[in-house]
């Protein structure tokens, strides 16, 4: 029997395959089965909040190598820009303190 089932896919055993398929009982589907499946799909889709849906789409897109590299490059550029501005402010602040210390000693300030 085991060999018969194993060989059922072979061209010579088409009759046996059909016989086997017929022997498997086909359970009756519940009433309005197809309709209830589609209803469940619609309910599941409606329950997905739109906010996470667009986020999911973005995450999927960002996972593509070219988008991931572009995103990281943009963040690196933003970091460099913000750091450059902050660094320039710091540098100016240090330079100001240095000048004031040289012309107006702490005793007077």
């Amino acid at each position, binding site marked *: 029997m085991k060999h018969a089932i194993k060989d059922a896919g072979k061209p010579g055993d088409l009759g046996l395959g059909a016989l086997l398929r017929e022997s498997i009982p086909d359970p009756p589907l519940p009433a309005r089965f197809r309709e209830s499946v589609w209803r469940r799909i619609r309910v599941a889709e409606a329950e997905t909040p739109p906010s996470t849906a667009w*986020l*999911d789409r973005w*995450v999927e897109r*960002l*996972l593509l190598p070219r988008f991931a590299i572009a*995103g*990281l490059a943009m*963040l*690196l*550029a*933003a*970091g*460099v*820009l*913000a*750091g*450059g501005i*902050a*660094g*320039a402010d*710091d*540098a*100016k602040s*240090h*330079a*100001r303190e*240095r*000048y*004031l210390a*040289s*012309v*107006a*000693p702490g*005793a*007077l*300030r």
Partner: protein
Amino acid sequence: MRRPLLIRLALLLAGVAVFLIGYGAATRWGAGRALMAGDDLAWLRMEFGLGEAEMARVRLLHEGYLPRCREFCARIAARKGELRAALAAGSESPESIGRRLEEIGSIRTQCQAAMLLHFEEVSRAMPPEQGRRYLDEMRRLTLDSHQEFERSMSHEAPGPHGHH
């Protein structure tokens, strides 16, 4: 359900890390540049955009002013040392301590006058608009030098005319 959340978290962390790396590197670069400048007058160049000729004039004035400034500082430090010693010994009368304080105040006033004069000279060495801005800033710093101290004292005390 958990996997997409982890992916989002990993993406977020990677983004934050990359941003911070860029930020840190740029800040360090800026600070390093400021240290490399190593010049007391670097602020004038940065803030007022002075050219080489203006910087040379300002530098000359600055170098001429520094010995006077140091002399005032030394005199103030010496008088303050004497006052501290007198207060520690407790041997002087309140009138004598008052005279010492007046003397220190007088040197400070002379020093502030010299500073204001120097700031005016420097402002004249700059383009008119920048000179005005510089002078406003330096006058404010010189005249408001004790403002914080006086303000804190006036909060603690009932007021200048609050004595009975």
